[in-house]
């Protein structure tokens, strides 16, 4: 089958890849672009492990067809750190033990970033709602919520 040529900007770099039309953005990122940060937990939009930003909007990459993103800008967890320095969210997740197995972490980081971009000073309730599309089987969520609160505080103080 003919493969479609896609041009995007991924994590700030112009990125081109070939894909079959039925391939999900998640599989294209993982298999064609080589970015394996976003994970497949369910493939049906329920778990959020595949969360990425497409044109500044957080979405489940498993629900997007790869050809849809031609001309779009994409941010994955690999693009959060700035020249080797971890993003405050990443640092706070590490320091606050907000992960155990880590499968869910890339998705939580992207969703949390999407929240803080819109709302730099969210309440705990707002954080919980904003992260409702991300499931974690290990942490019990509390440490994740606290890590996001701490990162928000640090980012506001900067």
């Amino acid at each position, binding site marked *: 089958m003919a493969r*479609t040529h896609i041009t995007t900007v991924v994590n700030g770099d112009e990125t081109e890849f070939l894909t079959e*039309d*039925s391939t*999900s953005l998640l599989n294209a990122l993982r298999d064609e672009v080589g970015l394996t940060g976003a994970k497949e937990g369910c*493939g*049906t*939009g*329920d778990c*959020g492990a595949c*969360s990425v930003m497409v044109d500044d*909007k*957080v*979405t*489940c990459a*498993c*629900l*997007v*067809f790869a*050809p*849809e993103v031609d001309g779009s800008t994409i941010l994955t967890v690999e693009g959060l750190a700035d020249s080797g320095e971890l993003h405050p969210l990443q640092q706070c997740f590490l320091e606050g033990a907000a992960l155990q197995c880590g499968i869910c972490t890339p998705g939580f980081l992207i*969703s949390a970033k*999407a*929240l803080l971009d819109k709302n730099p000073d969210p309440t705990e309730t707002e954080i919980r*709602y*904003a992260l*409702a*599309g*991300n499931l974690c089987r290990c942490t019990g969520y509390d440490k994740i919520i606290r890590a996001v609160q701490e990162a928000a505080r640090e980012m506001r103080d900067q």
Partner: protein
Amino acid sequence: MKYVAPSSVEEATSLLSSSPSAQVFAGATDVVPQIRAGRPAPEVLVDLKKIEELVSVANDEDKWTVGAATPTANLTDDPAFSEEFPGLTEAAGLIGSDQIQNRSSLGGNLCNGSPAADSVPAMVVNGARAVVAGPNGTRVLDVAEVVTGPGQTSLDADEFIVEFEIDRIPARTGDAYLRMIPRTEMDIAVVGAGARITLAEDGSIEHAALALAAVAPTVVRVPEAEAALVGNTADDETLSAVADAASEACDPIDDKRGTVAYRRQVAGVLAKRAVLIAIERAQQRNGTN
């Protein structure tokens, strides 16, 4: 499967006419899970999001026009729209997570044909109309006429919804939507109730609309409850007539989310509460728009 992204309504309708097994999509938040669950993928998938009318939200003096493929997040983030239709905004805002809302559309929520689709009762009580494009031009349908059964619509295979029209809200009118789910977020409605009330100058109820989701094969209006409300105020007797009529209108399924008896009872309770919220909002909207 081939992906195509037409840039005009005409281009999309001619694509649909020339390939019988083509399917339109907007956010794919229903389409992808269905394919993953084993439903055969269409030969051609037509992305509606590159057509400008399909993804724009606008208003004039008479009505709002909401592109059928517009992500629901664009509605919940629109202060003017959410101020005018808080009930429809809440209903759209209940669809899935933020990730889903950046993709999910009113057109997809309606045409997927789920009896539990949250935005549908709220569109119905607001008298929303669907502008449908096909090979012979466009026709306008009431939203309530689109879905004919679970997963089934009255649209032809080569038709799709371009946009929804919703008349500007009259004075002394308010809408509301409530749903019951076992969790706080990310679940399918056990019951959903949409209400819209217009008050007369003297504070009595002039117009009433009530629609329920997830209690029958399609979203249902409850004309008996509406009749009980008109001309009255929300006294106990009227409200219990509303609740009884709502329970009576149910023809629900029995599943792990709720038994038939439970759904009937919850439908009555939610109907009453939605009506009360709509009345409160109608009282606050005393002037015009």
